[in-house]
């Protein structure tokens, strides 16, 4: 387990001493679990640093979100939950809620109202997919391609279906080594309407059809398990086109100036957010709720978009999204939720995947191994 401790600098030690009395009913240290890398850095800048400055609370960052469900379950069985707040994808949030490992949230009393006067429930709207899950950002799994490898005379790819078009765009591909996303794209690009995709996948014929579509590119596909792999493969010229999280592609394009372009069409939208583990002691819970109230308000969610190209989950935050903190470029066009990027975009059906993930994953892995 990698445990980075980013806490206070010497300067804020004084602040800590001064609030120790004010916040005595709350614990003065909390462990926040997230994904690490650029994503944790954006949370540090947008949420942690201002919170630490206001409260003097020490925040310990743990980069275990990838294994959060398994680790939280192990901690719960051992009766010693050391995490105060955990950043997970919506599907994992639902799973933790189902297993009773995440606390139910009363959104309207425990979260800040939107600064346009709306209640938290209205402000988050459809993003509230589970009783335990506090949405933060909308991200998407989408495709990036090498602009210098587009064949002469061909138009640059604009959507996910280009990945199946080996005639126009020869070259290697990279796809996530799991069925979620790939099955949807296979059917969408085979002519199934988005509203029929999940019904189709419930039938054996539908699954066979999706695999048949994926078979056409299986020989040229690299299968990734970590989101950082596709940017690396693109930078090395190993692949022509690959899927990954849109924020990773943004940093390859805007921060590292690689010859990479975005094919936004048919992007798969997903939500990332917080869960609070069940069974926290009162003082820790009070601290965590205090943090969450602050870190998920309208301004904080909009601030995060200054550092990474993920869209804020509150409707009221959208108008506040400004320029990138260091690059100075406007961030709105890089958001997955920008209208120009939304052509054919779909949201993963969490409820459906909760039911069929076990079965389809076995089939997917067996298909991969053939």
């Amino acid at each position, binding site marked *: 387990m990698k445990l980075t401790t980013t806490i206070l600098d010497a300067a804020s030690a004084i602040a800590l001493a001064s609030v120790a009395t004010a916040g005595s009913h709350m614990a003065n240290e909390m462990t926040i679990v997230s994904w690490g890398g650029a994503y944790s850095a954006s949370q540090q800048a947008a949420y942690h640093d201002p919170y630490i400055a206001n409260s003097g609370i020490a925040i310990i960052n743990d980069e275990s979100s*990838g*294994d959060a*469900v*398994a680790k939280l*379950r192990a901690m719960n069985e051992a009766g010693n939950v050391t995490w105060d707040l955990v950043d997970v994808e919506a599907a994992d949030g639902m*799973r933790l*809620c*189902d*297993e*009773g490992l995440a606390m139910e949230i009363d959104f309207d009393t425990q979260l800040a109202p939107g600064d346009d006067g709306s209640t938290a429930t209205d402000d988050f709207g459809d993003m509230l997919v589970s009783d335990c899950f506090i949405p933060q950002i909308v991200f998407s799994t989408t495709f990036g391609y090498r602009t210098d490898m587009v064949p002469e005379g061909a138009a640059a790819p604009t959507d996910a279906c280009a990945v199946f078009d080996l005639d126009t765009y020869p070259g*290697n591909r990279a796809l996530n*080594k*799991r069925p979620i996303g790939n099955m949807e794209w296979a059917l969408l690009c085979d002519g199934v309407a988005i509203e029929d995709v999940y019904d189709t996948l419930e039938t054996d014929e539908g699954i066979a059809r999706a695999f048949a579509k994926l078979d056409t590119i299986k020989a040229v596909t*690299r*299968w990734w*398990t970590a989101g950082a792999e596709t940017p690396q493969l693109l930078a*090395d*010229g*190993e692949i022509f086109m690959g899927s990954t999280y849109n924020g990773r592609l943004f940093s390859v394009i805007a921060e590292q100036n690689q010859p990479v372009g975005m094919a936004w069409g048919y992007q798969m939208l997903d939500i990332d957010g917080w869960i609070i583990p069940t069974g926290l002691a009162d003082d820790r819970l009070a601290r965590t709720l205090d943090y969450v109230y602050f870190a998920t308000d309208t301004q904080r969610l909009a601030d995060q978009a200054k550092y990474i190209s993920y869209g804020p989950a509150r409707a009221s935050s959208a108008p506040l999204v400004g320029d990138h903190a260091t690059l100075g470029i406007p961030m709105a066009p890089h958001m997955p939720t920008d209208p120009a990027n939304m052509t054919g975009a779909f949201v993963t059906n969490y*409820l459906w995947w*909760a*039911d*069929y*993930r*076990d*079965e389809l*994953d*076995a*089939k997917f*892995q*067996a*298909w*991969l*191994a053939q």
Partner: protein
Amino acid sequence: MSEPTTTATMQAADGTPLKVSLARALRRQKMRALLLIAPLLGFILLGFVFPIGQMLFRSVENDVVRDTLPTTIEALENWDSTSNEAPPEEVFAALAADLQVAVDTKAHTVLGRRLNFEYSGITTLFRKIGRDVEDWDLATDGPFAPRFEDSDDEWLDPDLWRAVLAYSDRYTSGYYLAAIDKTMVNGVIESRPADQSLHLMLFGRTAWMSVLICFCTLLLGYPIAFLLATLKARHANLLLILVLLPFWTSLLVRTSAWKVLLQEQGVINDLLVAIGLLADDGRLQLINNKLGVIIAMTHILLPFMILPLYSVMKTIPPSYVRAAKSLGATDWTAFWRVYFPQSVPGIGAGAILVFILAVGYYITPELVGGPSGSFISNRIAYQWSGAGNWGLVGALGAILLVAVLILYWVYDKIVGIDNVKLG
């Protein structure tokens, strides 16, 4: 010692009989020895025996169904599971009662997740019914079967109830069956459909690739160990450093280095294209397949073969080979009939070390294996952190453990474990 001591009994200096005194001294010695190994013993018990025991227990434990639905299971006993009809009303009434208790602790969704491993779709059924059932009055709202049907008509599917019944015991063989691609239907063991069968193939692949890697390390390691053992100490030491240097380098670093070397736009392919051996569009696929795993793991495990071989070869007196030659043996005969048999214990030690390490390898197949080169351990890791099916993890782990123990036993029968030397 009630009878009075006679002068014939041997006595220690302080007057106690020698026997007692000796026993006391021995006991003290044993206690001291025990104390000395106590930290290790404690560590092994806590860090090895206990977790493995836990894993074994988890692979058969199945309390969740009976704990969550006690009265339902009882009511289900009257239902003919081979029939094609839904269970009678009393079962649904019992289920409603059980669920009303379960929703308070969310036990129903935990159960849903558990049963979903066997029957896709149960997660949602339980989540939905959990919301409905809270408003029901058990005394007046019956009959309940239609209410369940209102929630979702799959509740009347006998297949669903067969899945519940099949996993209603406190202990289950279900995880082991799943681990060998089987399933139990109505008390009969059946194979899972081919498109969901993965584990036996992965066990097989892990085994034969480990054997192959073992063989490759022997092929490459034997001459090096021979050279190490026969060179002058000055040169041998330098060579030994060259063997040990990669051994001391992080596994992750070495695996990543192989990635850089082997990938399509990597060093080896670039080189071959530059000297004209390959066309630019005909680059070799050296990674993300079995070949990549074999190359990287052979390199990583090589020291585990070389070091035992070297330490055994070091003890083989050179005079034997000289004697064979002086008696007229050719170089080959002298090596094959005299030297090689003496080095077999080293081969045995190296082979068993490399094989057992290879069978459990995770990180290298994960990074350079791609889908065709992944091992059973990669699947175990996925089931642990991805799918959360810890019972299956326990069963797969236990099978791997038993397979290695059987191999060890076979090895002992054929070669003899006493013939294994690490030096």
